[in-house]
């Protein structure tokens, strides 16, 4: 009857449909099919405004993906460095990495975006997209840092000992032995963060980066079809994240069944 501590994990990405969770598994289908059917129905039944809206948005989707990809790439690099800092025995590196995580996670992303975009704009001159990507990746780097740290710490200590006793130094051990194993643990949460990041790129619309949401707002501002526009935008985001979450779920299955190691 000793209750062990149970940690509840609700990621900020999408709900990943897994075969273990039949509820979500079938909910994924309902949502996905529902969204597609609704989208097609709207476009066909009322081309004005729905078809117009759909035609207006594609370059916004591209921008959304661009921001997402560049940000996740940069965030992975920042995350790796931060994660290594967090497990470092060097007190200063450790303190810097930990404080970075603590501070970034303590400030709303939107405030960070404003800050990096406008306030720091005083000192460095960068294009909008770059500023947006920097802001997103600085923020997500902190989360990725924790993902990397946990991933690295999940590898058995014996691996490090074996590598060190063969003569590998710390860095070599990390890159030849630990990280190549850690990616399996890291990949699913990275997939999840990817989806969360994609959703959060909607915030860059505030910065006049012409992403999906911004495009929609522009259309709505001109046509006053708020309801219709936001319906389409919500459907598009939903379809994208549902597809991505399916991908993550397939990836997780692969990792679990893939017997290679």
């Amino acid at each position, binding site marked *: 009857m000793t209750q062990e501590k149970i940690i509840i994990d609700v990621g900020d990405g999408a709900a990943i449909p897994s075969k273990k969770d039949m509820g979500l598994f079938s909910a994924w289908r309902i949502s996905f099919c529902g969204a597609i059917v609704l989208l097609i129905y709207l476009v066909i039944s009322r081309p004005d405004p729905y078809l*117009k809206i759909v035609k*207006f948005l594609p*370059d916004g989707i591209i921008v959304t993906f661009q921001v997402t990809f560049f940000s996740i790439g940069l965030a992975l690099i920042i995350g790796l460095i931060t994660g290594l800092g967090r497990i470092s025995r060097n007190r200063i590196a450790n303190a810097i990495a930990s404080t970075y995580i603590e501070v970034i996670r303590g400030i709303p992303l939107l405030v960070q975006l*404003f800050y990096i*975009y*406008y*306030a720091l*704009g*005083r000192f460095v*001159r960068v*294009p*909008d997209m770059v500023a947006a990507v920097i802001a997103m990746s600085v923020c997500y780097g902190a989360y990725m840092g924790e993902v990397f740290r946990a991933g690295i710490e999940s590898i058995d200590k014996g691996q490090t000992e074996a590598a060190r006793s063969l003569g590998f130094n710390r860095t070599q051990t990390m890159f030849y032995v630990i990280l190549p194993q850690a990616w399996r643990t890291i990949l699913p949460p990275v997939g999840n963060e990817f989806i969360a990041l994609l959703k959060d790129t909607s915030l860059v619309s*505030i*910065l*006049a980066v*012409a992403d999906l949401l911004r*495009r929609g*707002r*522009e*259309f*709505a*501002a*001109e*046509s*006053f079809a*708020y309801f219709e526009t936001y319906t389409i935008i919500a459907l598009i985001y939903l379809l994208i994240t549902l597809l991505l979450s399916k991908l993550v779920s397939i990836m997780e299955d692969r990792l679990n069944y893939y017997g290679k190691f």
Partner: protein
Amino acid sequence: TDATWPPMEFVNADKEIVGFDIDYMKAAAKEGGYQVEFKSVAWDGIFGGLEAGKYDAVCSSVTITEERKKTMDFSMPYFKVRQALVVPKESNATTLEEMTGKTVGAQIGTTGYFAIKEMEGIVAKSYDEIGLAMEDLFNGRIDGVVCDDPVAAQYALQREDYKAKLKIAAVLDTGDEYYGVAVKKGNTEVLDLINKGIQAVEEKGLANEFRAKWIGQ
């Protein structure tokens, strides 16, 4: 420019930034012999971006005010507006004073917002875009919206669905305001070019043509 301010500047169905200001600046550029490129930027950071050098000039229905002059330089005025109050059809308010106790919206950082904020007894609400304020007015969440009169006219008189419900109650006695193009303080190089262009456009009387095209009367 903040392209959410029809008819002065906005994005049309072809995703082009268009409007009175745009045509005006294009003409001025032609006259002044320089190139312009328009960039859509959110209003409440538009001057921050100017200062940060993300662009050289702000041509976005910027009223020349003493306050603003402290932080940036303005071109010669190129357009005159007044602040207008838009209310629902059934309202019988005709001045801002009569809106006491009510909630009035305006776009963040505009002279319209400054006007309602200074008014005792009015609950001032700031929006990112004037269209969002109009939508809230349309939906009955607020009791009035203050903005530049061409914009007010655009919303209250042009749009089918709004026309049925909204009207311009009054043009406010906050005095005439003049639009100018803002540049970073001390950037005389750009300022001179713009002034030269505006001068030429005014001399040719092109402004009236644009007015007719975008604003009507």
